[in-house]
Each structure stands twice: as C-alpha cells, then as structure tokens.
C-alpha cells in the first residue's frame, strides 16, 4: 500500500475562492503540512509554489484548487454546476483543529442534527434516523448514501416550516463531501451543499463550504450566514473529538446503524489507502 502522504498528494485541494478581491497578491497557506504561496499576477493569472516546486492549479466550483502531483487524479465532477438557474454560493473558509477526515465524516452524519443544530436541522424528540442505503460505486470510486430521510425544522434559509428532508450523500474524494437535499421551494430539483476540505496537516484543516441552490429570495449574506452558522456549531464538536485523527479500525469507535455512511467512508478510505489524517491501529497486541 502506498504511504498516506504519497496517496494524498494525488488529489486536488481548495485553497481560495476565485473571485475574492481581498486575497493578497501573495497568499501564504499550508497543504499537507507544506507551506505554499498562491500568487495572483497583474494580469490575473494564478500560480502555486512550494519552495522551488511549482504545484498544479485549476479552477472549479468557484474555488481555486491545487495539487502537489505533476499528474493528479481528475477533479471530481458536479454536473449540476451547468444548471445556470442555480445560485452558486462560496461560503468562505473556516479553520478547524481536527483531522480533515473528521470534518468530512461529521458532514456525513445526521444523527447529531437535533443535538448540535437544535431547531434548525433537527429537533427533539424527532431523533430517529430511519434506515437508509449506502453503496460504494466502484466505477466512479465514490461512497454514495441514498434515501436518507430526516425531519428538519428549518432545512434551509428558504424553508418556512419543518419538512421531512431527503438527503443523498456523495464522497467523490477523501476530503470532499457533497450533499443533495430536498429543495424547500421546488420538488423537481435538489439543492447541493458541498464541503471542500483543505488539509493543513493531519490534525488541522480549513473547510470551504460551497452551495448550489434554487433560492430566488434569500440574500447572499443570508445564505452564507446560514451555512456558516451551521458549520460553526459543528466546529465546536469537531475540535473536542478525541482522538483528533479518524480511527479506521471499527473496534476503536463503536458504530451504530445510523452511522452506516461513516462506516462505508472509513472502509473506502482504508481500501484506497487514503489514510492521511487517519488513525491507524497499531498491530494487535497479544491479550496476555
């Protein structure tokens, strides 16, 4: 198996929002424990350097992505980006002292909604997580959870009353999670909320939420604020999880049926060797 750092180098990571007038000409940040600089030239072209190395760079989903590999895996696709009626909302970046994998896993969990996002994404006593389906799509190499249903008092900024929201989750890369959920305004389309995670190092990450919504009414500030509010509620939990890294061995954190997506995610990470930010169980010690 490839070592976790080498495996992590094959992917793309978000480091900025394309149209961010406040980004300095030379913006210093970190990816996979390396100091890098994102440089914006006079004519607007972008480049990423790490010491003497020059890293790959691309733009997608309103974000600037970089990869240390000369030959990275293709960036995952979100076909809905071509639906021009959607409103595309980059929500900024929030730094969190937790493993990048923990941030993705928390996003995949719905059981915490009533307790962490009380009266917004969940409420007591509506705490039951009904059975849902999880698959690993071998052709696309993605984790997919479908038929996830949950009662939500305020599913989105545009929701006026509680609705049973249906969710589909996609994990197309180890540090990206995409959520499709019932659109409160329309029943023929799904809203999209993504979490793009920048691995600062194995114990720290920066999270760039991005949304593609059908919402004609809410102001940009309202939509961004709603997402930031939700994420800041999560941040508090994430920073208090112990261990900081995501345990891969099922014996270390006991899952329940509601955690099927997380179980599949951990298995998929293990299978594909994407263990940067994971806690790998030391070799079994004998019982004596």
């Amino acid at each position: 198996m490839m070592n976790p750092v080498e495996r992590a180098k094959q992917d793309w990571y978000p480091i900025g929002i394309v149209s961010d007038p406040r980004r300095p000409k030379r913006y210093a940040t970190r990816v996979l424990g390396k100091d890098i600089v994102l440089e914006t030239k006079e004519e607007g072209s972008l480049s990423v350097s790490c010491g003497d190395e020059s890293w790959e760079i691309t733009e997608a989903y309103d974000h600037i992505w970089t990869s240390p590999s000369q030959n990275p895996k293709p960036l995952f696709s979100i076909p809905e980006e071509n639906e021009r009626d959607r409103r595309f909302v980059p929500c900024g970046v929030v730094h969190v002292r937790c493993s990048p994998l923990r941030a993705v896993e928390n996003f995949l969990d719905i059981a915490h909604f009533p307790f962490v996002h009380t009266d917004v994404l969940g409420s007591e006593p509506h705490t039951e997580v009904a059975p849902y389906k999880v698959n690993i799509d071998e052709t696309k190499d993605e984790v997919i959870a479908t038929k996830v249903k949950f009662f939500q008092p305020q599913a989105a900024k545009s929701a006026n009353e509680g609705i049973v929201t249906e969710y589909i989750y996609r994990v197309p890369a180890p540090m990206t999670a995409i959520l499709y959920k019932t659109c409160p305004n329309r029943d023929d389309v799904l809203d999209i909320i993504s979490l793009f995670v920048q691995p600062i190092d194995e114990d720290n990450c920066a999270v760039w939420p991005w949304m593609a919504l059908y919402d004609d009414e809410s102001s940009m500030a309202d939509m961004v604020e709603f997402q930031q509010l939700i994420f800041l509620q999560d941040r508090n939990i994430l920073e208090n999880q112990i261990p900081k890294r995501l345990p891969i061995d099922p014996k270390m954190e006991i899952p329940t049926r509601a955690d099927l997506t997380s179980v599949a995610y951990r298995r998929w990470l293990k299978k594909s060797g994407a263990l940067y930010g994971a806690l790998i169980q030391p070799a079994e010690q004998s019982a004596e």
Partner: protein
Amino acid sequence: MEFTLYDYALSGNCYKVRLFASILGVNYEKISVEFHPAAEHKSETMLQISPAGTLPILTVGEMVLSETQAMLFWMAKTYDRSGAWWPNNYDPMAQAMVLQWLGFSGDLTATIGQARLNSLFQTPIDRAKVVKCSVTALRRLEAHLTEQSFEQKKFITGVFPTIADLACFPYVALSGDVGTDPGLEHDSYPAIRNWIYEIKSLPGFIPMPGIFEMHQLKDHEADPTIRQVPEG
C-alpha cells in the same frame, strides 16, 4: 419593530444585542451582513450607514450606534421596565461599576475576540501576545467573580445581572473557540463557570454557535416512571 440591527451570526458583539433583545422581549428587524468572506461591513453601502466599518450597527430613526456598549445602555434605558439592567440614577457608584466592567468587555473583544477571529479566519495578529492578554483578562474576571461569590453575589456587579454581565459574557464563553492554549479552557476558572451557568439560566437566554444552551429535561425524559428507583 423597535429598531434595526445589522447583524453577523458569528459575531460575539452582535450576539450581545440579540441576547439582550431576547431577554427583554423586544422585536427588531435583523439584516444579515456578510462579514466573511465578502467583508460587506467595509463596503461603500455599509460605510454610508456607519462610517466605523464595524458590526453590529443599531439604527432607530436618525440614531446610528456602532458601539455595542452604547446599544446595551440604550436598550436598558428604553425597554427595561425592571430597572435592574442599568442601575438607577441615585446610585452613581453602582453605575460607575457597570461602566468599569463595560470597559473591561472592550478588552475581551480586543483579546479573546481577536484571537478567535484569527482561529476561525486566519486574520493576521500577533497570536502569542493576544492569547497571553486573553488569559490575563480571564484571570482578572475569575478573581473578581470569586470575590463576589464570598458576598453571595452571583454577577459582576451584584446580586442581579446588569448590561456589564451581558457585555462580558460572549467572549468569555467563546474562549474555547480560540484554541487549546493553556489558560483558555474554562476548567481552570470555577467562578467563571458558575457565572456562565447563571447567565445561561436567565429567562430569555438564547445560544449562538460556540455557546450552547444548558440541557433541559424534555417531557419524555422527565417521565417519573423511568426515574423511579427500583426497591430492594
């Protein structure tokens, strides 16, 4: 609607106004301003409303307030029928004490508030220095609240909460957002912890991200048949 609040959900200073309005039961119009990432509070439109370029902003008719402490004072004088949140005019010493701790709340914004912004959004600061000053501020409050407790006073200036308590509360409660630097966690401050419980117990208390409500027993949890201790 009694007033307009230009608000950012993650701001501790905006939360002071939201919290006090909830405690007083005052309805107001809330306009969200995208502090991050758009820095909308520095935009031309917003600077025309308040040249200070900060949040929150409270407006009523011609009056525009950009200092949170002034907002709390105005709200207390305008809406507080109990007269407890701002001491009455016959007690200048009590008023002076409230003003003193309102000033201290400004120190908390400049220390814990700035360190928290750095943790969330990587705003450039001298982090080591700001964290050190944050811990100094927390220790000062802890010492004061400990002395208050010897006189059976649960709040900063006495037996009842004032606007000084609300002004100091958010950034003290949010210090855990800053990091795991020694001296920022509440474990070391028993008097502060008790005070946080008192404020969270106030009728009308509302949470914000990073400041949770105390757990309340729901009806199904309070079922007496479940709580019965079996005999023998």
